[in-house]
């Protein structure tokens, strides 16, 4: 599996976190560090750009829901965009599309925050 490259891009009132590679139990802690850092900095509006994501473990998905929940408690959100059909299928199978906000395009997610 490809090692996951995590890039953070700060915009005026939200952040984009771009994922490239696979998120499994070994690489997920790094994303956790990034997301925790954002939360500590009171930046609760986050878009996860998943266009480059080719795998995500179910444990990682569960953890993302925790981050989204806490972001919402602070008037923010964690939105997902650019999921591959395969990953979207997993999210949908687990019923998590009812909890997480998912957009096809990055622009749609951005509009929600602006």
């Amino acid at each position, binding site marked *: *599996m490809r090692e996951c490259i995590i890039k953070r891009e700060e915009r005026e009132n939200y952040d984009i976190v771009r994922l490239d590679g696979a998120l499994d139990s070994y690489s997920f802690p790094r994303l956790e560090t990034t997301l925790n850092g954002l939360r500590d900095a009171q930046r609760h509006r986050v878009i996860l750009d998943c266009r480059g994501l080719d795998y995500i473990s179910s*444990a990682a998905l*569960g953890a993302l829901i925790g981050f989204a929940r806490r972001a919402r408690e602070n008037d923010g959100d964690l939105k997902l965009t650019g999921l591959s059909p395969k990953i979207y299928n997993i999210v949908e199978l687990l*019923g*998590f599309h009812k*909890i997480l906000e998912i957009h096809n395009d990055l622009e749609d997610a951005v509009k929600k925050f602006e």
Partner: protein
Amino acid sequence: MTAETSSGAFLASFLFLLLALTSAGLFYAVNAIRRLRRERDELIHQKEVIFGFIHDVGDVFMHSEDVDLDRMLNRVLFYAARTTQAGAGAIYLYEKGEDAFRARAVSGIFPPLSGTLDTQLEKAVSKSQHIERLVRAEPIERGEGLVGEAADFGVPILIEDAERDPRVPTFDQEFLRVRSILLVPMRFLQKILGVLVVVNRVDGRPFIQADLSLLQALADQASVSIHYAGLRDSLDEKQRIDHDLTVARQIQTALLPKAIPRLEGVELAAFNHPAQEIGGDYYDFIQIDDDHLGIAIADVSGKGIVGAIMMSISRSVLRAQALMSRNPSDVLKAVNRVMYEDIAEDMFVSMLYMVLNIRTRELVVARAGHERPAWSRASEKSFTIIDSPGMALGIADKEVFEATLREETVQLKAGDVVVAYTDGVTEALDADRHEWGVERFLEAVSTAAPDGANAVLNNVQQRLMRFVGGVEQYDDMTLLALRILQ
């Protein structure tokens, strides 16, 4: 007698009879409502008790570094007594050195079950501490009395009217009298760890079958904890990691059904292939009543010891709830209410729970975020994927979960096959990291479906193993199949 007076007398007696019938009917109706209300209150009470218990056991493992056996046993006993509304209770544990059982935890005024209290002593001991000391001090040999019987045969014992049973000791002192008693064995794998005993409901009524089922569910959960606590005590950190992995594997093995139930008119088959890391898959068959069989398959999100504990909690909660309703969606809703409260926020369990009516062959399916089962009809070549909306357990609150979950009913016919699986099967990887995939899986199922559930299992296993070669898998692979016979 004139015709008038005779018809008047007839009318009077008719009215009297009517009045009598109405009041009798009213009396029964009021009683029935009272009974229903009481039953409802009891169900609510039991649910609350299960909530508390699961929370407690979860607490002991998830948030505490040291597992204190005595503290845990006392809690188990507290919840056991509350569940069954028992006035007193005790947990007897097997002591290897003595080859005997000893009461390690006691609550309420629990009478010495060996019945070796002589009359003089009985008169002298009026304080509960003295009784408790006596109960704790007295070893019970293997095969001795009711405790020995429950342990040796590994079966629960329910004695509704204990005063008529010669196996129950009798005492002159009123406060020591055993009116009703319930004993359940505590086992891990084939090993007997102890016996959990409760006596005398506080409302004076006898224990019932439902008390036994709940108490056994509590005892099963506690056994996992006792086994784990007992072994972990004397190890250093590195040994503990290895130990945890072994225990996780043992827990998983212990939780899977020992045998597939044999039922008239249905062929059942199942397999579980654990991965190196222990992925936390399990399946279960629950006999709800004579006509209804509950069939569950699940995948918990955690791995290793955490996954194993999660699995054991899910199994206990499901087993307790499954007996309360034949509607799989109601059962999953109840399970979610317990799990959402008590498991870590980012953990979840995907579960497929189906109830098969063995007589009518109707299958009701509820899906909590699990892989959709495939239904191969004897009359057709193609598959129907049984889809029903739902989400994984433990991740969403009552409102969101229950608004999403819907069950689906299908009418099965002779020769039909239904297969359920976990993602470890379809996502199994070969040396080039290619997935086996749903298509290949369904192909393997359909080739063998006409030959029955076991044939489906064998064919899937063979093709799957051929595909992955010797490549070590990261996830458990679990599959179950059922076929309706002629």
